[in-house]
């Protein structure tokens, strides 16, 4: 009798422990899965579209989704990753601030079993991210370069305004353009300067360059915001009829500028497609299917006055 009562307490304790563990496990299984959307900056409408589209698709797929703004600050980005890892998110849809500096954050998330999907901006790593979905900037600028050469009739003096020098997209665009244009020796680049993807900076840069080089025939800019800034400078200098402006992005303003004859061409990117596909791949991986490439270029399209009607209003092709 006495022996029986001695065993009762440990058995009851074990039952209670098992109940607590099973409760905890089932509550974890039942709780809604979460995706974090970390964006380099929400100060730029392009990235707002990217972030909100990713979050929206994640919600459509049944996830809780939260957007984190890194404010173009790598320290802030690292802080977000600390919190995301601590809070046990299931995946990260990530638009990095820096191709090299952001690798460590992605690696830390991987170590914590949280897959990261880079959107639009690349990190310099083969396998830290589960996948990287990136606009095919190089190919887009090869097409733009070919069109540029034909518009310029293979000769003339031009300016290149670069984006952020620490961003791979800047160089992939520039390299694609130069892989074509540099093969034509009568096309001479008179100046190449960065304006950090910023419209106002591009306007200042273009004004300064035009003062030093009055005979310019064209300007190629690494994004549409800079192209529109450069156009303002060109317009103010009374050279809008002479200097052809080329951009990249396919922003609504640039599409309208091409339709109005203010810009010569741009390249259309598809941020909504990129963001939605990133969320879908994250969902696919969480469900156990990792059958996709680590790097996924997303096709872009050349937009010129010849095909502008296809892009008014903005579409989400391809």
């Amino acid at each position, binding site marked *: 009798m006495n022996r029986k009562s001695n065993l009762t307490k440990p058995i009851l304790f074990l039952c209670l422990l098992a109940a607590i563990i099973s409760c905890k496990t089932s509550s974890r299984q039942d709780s809604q899965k979460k995706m974090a959307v970390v964006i380099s900056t929400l100060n730029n409408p392009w990235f707002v579209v990217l972030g909100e589209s990713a979050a929206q698709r994640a919600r459509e797929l049944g996830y809780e989704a939260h957007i984190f703004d890194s404010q173009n600050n790598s320290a802030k980005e690292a802080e977000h990753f600390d919190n995301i890892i601590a809070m046990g998110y299931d995946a990260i849809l990530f638009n990095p601030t820096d*191709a*090299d500096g952001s690798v460590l954050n992605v690696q830390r998330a991987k170590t914590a079993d949280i897959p990261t999907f880079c959107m639009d901006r690349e990190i310099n790593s083969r396998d830290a991210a589960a996948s990287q979905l990136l606009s095919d900037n*190089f190919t887009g600028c090869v097409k733009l370069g070919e069109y540029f050469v034909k518009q310029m009739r293979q000769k003339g003096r031009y300016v290149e305004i670069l984006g952020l020098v*620490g961003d791979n997209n800047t160089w992939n665009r520039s*390299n*694609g353009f130069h892989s074509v244009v540099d093969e034509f020796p009568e096309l001479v680049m008179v100046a190449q300067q960065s304006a950090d993807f910023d419209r106002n900076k591009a306007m200042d840069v273009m004004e300064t360059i035009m003062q030093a080089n009055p005979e310019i025939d064209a300007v190629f800019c690494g994004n549409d915001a800079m192209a529109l800034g450069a156009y303002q400078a060109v317009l103010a200098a009374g050279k809008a009829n002479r200097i052809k402006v080329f951009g990249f992005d396919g922003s609504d303003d640039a599409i309208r500028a091409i339709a109005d004859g203010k810009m010569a061409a741009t390249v259309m990117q598809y941020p909504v497609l990129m963001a939605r596909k990133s969320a879908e791949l994250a969902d696919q991986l969480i469900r156990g299917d990792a059958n996709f490439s680590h790097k996924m*270029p997303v096709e872009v399209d050349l937009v010129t006055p010849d095909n502008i009607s296809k892009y008014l209003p903005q579409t989400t092709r391809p």
Partner: protein
Amino acid sequence: MKRKLIKRLIAVVAIPVVLFASFKIENLQVYQAQTRQTTFDADEFANRFWNEKLAESIENAPDADQLLKLLNENQEAAFRQYGKKLGISKTAYFTLKGFGIIDAVNDEFISVATIGGNTVELETAFIFGNAVRDGSGQVNIDKFVNMTDFNKVSIAVNQLVRKKVTSHLTQAAQKGQAIEFCGMAEQKEDEPFPASLRIIPVKAIISDGKTE
């Protein structure tokens, strides 16, 4: 007293010197641009691709007339069977080979009437983009640290096309000559199929015996 003063003086001088020597101040953007330079040798990679991998793509390439017939009759099947796509894209790249007679030579291309009655244009001026790299199906994007290196392969491969194929071809090609060719072409799913397909040649043998 004097010793103490000397020790303090040494400390006052030495500590800032040691601290200053411990840091190196650099412009962040310049530093980032420098560190981004990788050691990837695109020319060496392209040469290996040209000498060791390309032959397999040429060997396995479909006949130009057979592919063109399929592209005209059933584009979806042609894309599925022979097209190579990268990432999320509507553009597919094809490798194809064939025989024909040169029917025109101009500054941009050499027009060839194939034995099956089709016309193809061998590019000689606008050798750009990724048709050769991606059409070959021999270069795996996942093996590259970044897109910059991957894209450098296309630039280097296109240089080899100019050096090893088109530079000789433009000099030797004349209307009426027989030609054997192999090359890569691109076609977008939602664009109409052109009357004559543009091909970046990776191999061209013309009847005067000159082989590229």
